[in-house]
């Protein structure tokens, strides 16, 4: 029997996200998307139940993140990717395409989840959709 499971910090973060009304997304230490809550589903255009967990390359391709100047962002350049690789909190805005086909500008605050002082087990990203420019 395969006995691998996420670290407790990731389990608790996921539990926290399920209870938040703020859009929240969680990636693991490999950068794979392991959970987003219902509020995030509204912004991303589909629910987590519909999509499930996604590898880093896959979710980057799905959501096509771009700078506000329309320059493509790799998964590593998104706030979640920077928080994971550089082990620091990040706040940034970018453009993405929801799975409903609608373009959105969002502002993200991402922070690494440390289970020990030297061990990051994932990143929690909380985000807001910016209102359309007048």
């Amino acid at each position, binding site marked *: *029997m395969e*006995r*691998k*499971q*996420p*670290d*407790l*910090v990731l*389990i*608790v973060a*996921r*539990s926290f996200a399920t209870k938040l009304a703020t859009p929240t997304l969680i990636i693991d230490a490999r950068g794979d998307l392991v959970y987003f809550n219902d509020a995030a589903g509204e912004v991303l255009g589909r629910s987590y139940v519909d999509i499930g967990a996604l590898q880093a390359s896959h979710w980057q391709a799905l959501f096509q993140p771009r700078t506000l100047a329309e320059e493509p962002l790799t998964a590593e350049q998104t706030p979640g990717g920077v928080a994971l690789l550089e082990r620091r909190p990040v706040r940034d805005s970018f453009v993405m395409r929801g799975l409903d086909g609608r373009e959105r500008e969002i502002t993200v605050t991402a922070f690494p989840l440390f*289970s*020990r*002082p030297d061990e990051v087990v994932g990143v929690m990203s909380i985000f807001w959709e910016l209102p359309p420019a007048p």
Partner: protein
Amino acid sequence: MIARIWGARGSLSAPGPETVSYGGNTSCVELELADGTTLILDAGSGIRELGQKLAERDPGTAYICLTHLHLDHVEGLGFFAPLWRAGWKLQFWGPPSTTATLRERISRYLSPPLFPIGLSEATAEAVLDDVPREPWRVGSAVVEAQTVEHRGPTLGYRIEEDGRVLAYLPDHEPYLTSALDDPREWISGWALAAGADLLLHDSQYTDDEYVGRLGWGHSSGAHAAAFARAAGVRRLALFHHDPMRSDRALEELYDQVAELVQEDQEQPLIAREGLQIDFGSIA
């Protein structure tokens, strides 16, 4: 591997005529491994009597795995005879901390004014370390520790020897952070208990009590049964009995849990002082 229960009570020692059948001592389980190694799980008040037994033999080495440092899991240390006998080597493991070593944290209890004698005065060689991150060998067994859902840094343990597995999660509230129908890998402690022959698990509350104590870090008997089922455990032993639970009330709780056990599981049991389980005799 032989497991002996020296204490199965939770939160506070509860001696008296109402608890004489299952015992009033707090958490302590002795594992006698196939190669003779002594591995001890937790140092609640039950470790006092275990220490008396160990002190009858020549000094040697004993290994003590602490799940966490709440008093009911360390309160017996000051009365653990080998700690005060020269020649003994005692290797402790406990949950990691970002602020203090395990020795510093235990010394908060084993020092005045909470205790008259300091840990530094122990005559045994006491080595205190944070648990290893990966499974490690102790005598003829392999031990694995992971943090689990409880108040404060808390570990659960999995001990495997000759293909037999004991899982020990005495203080655990997995359904605070998971739903009953969540994928099993998202349930705290699942990997430790998966496929275990015996699971000693927190079952402190009745369903009614749990409603008023949500988030206190403990499980109801029903939650313990659900967790055992999710992990494919062969046999569940109710552990960490509420100090207010009389023997009769504990048996009533047991009856409720026994009804929840599925056909592919053995009937649960109530952990009681003096209970001995020989894993070598499990078919």
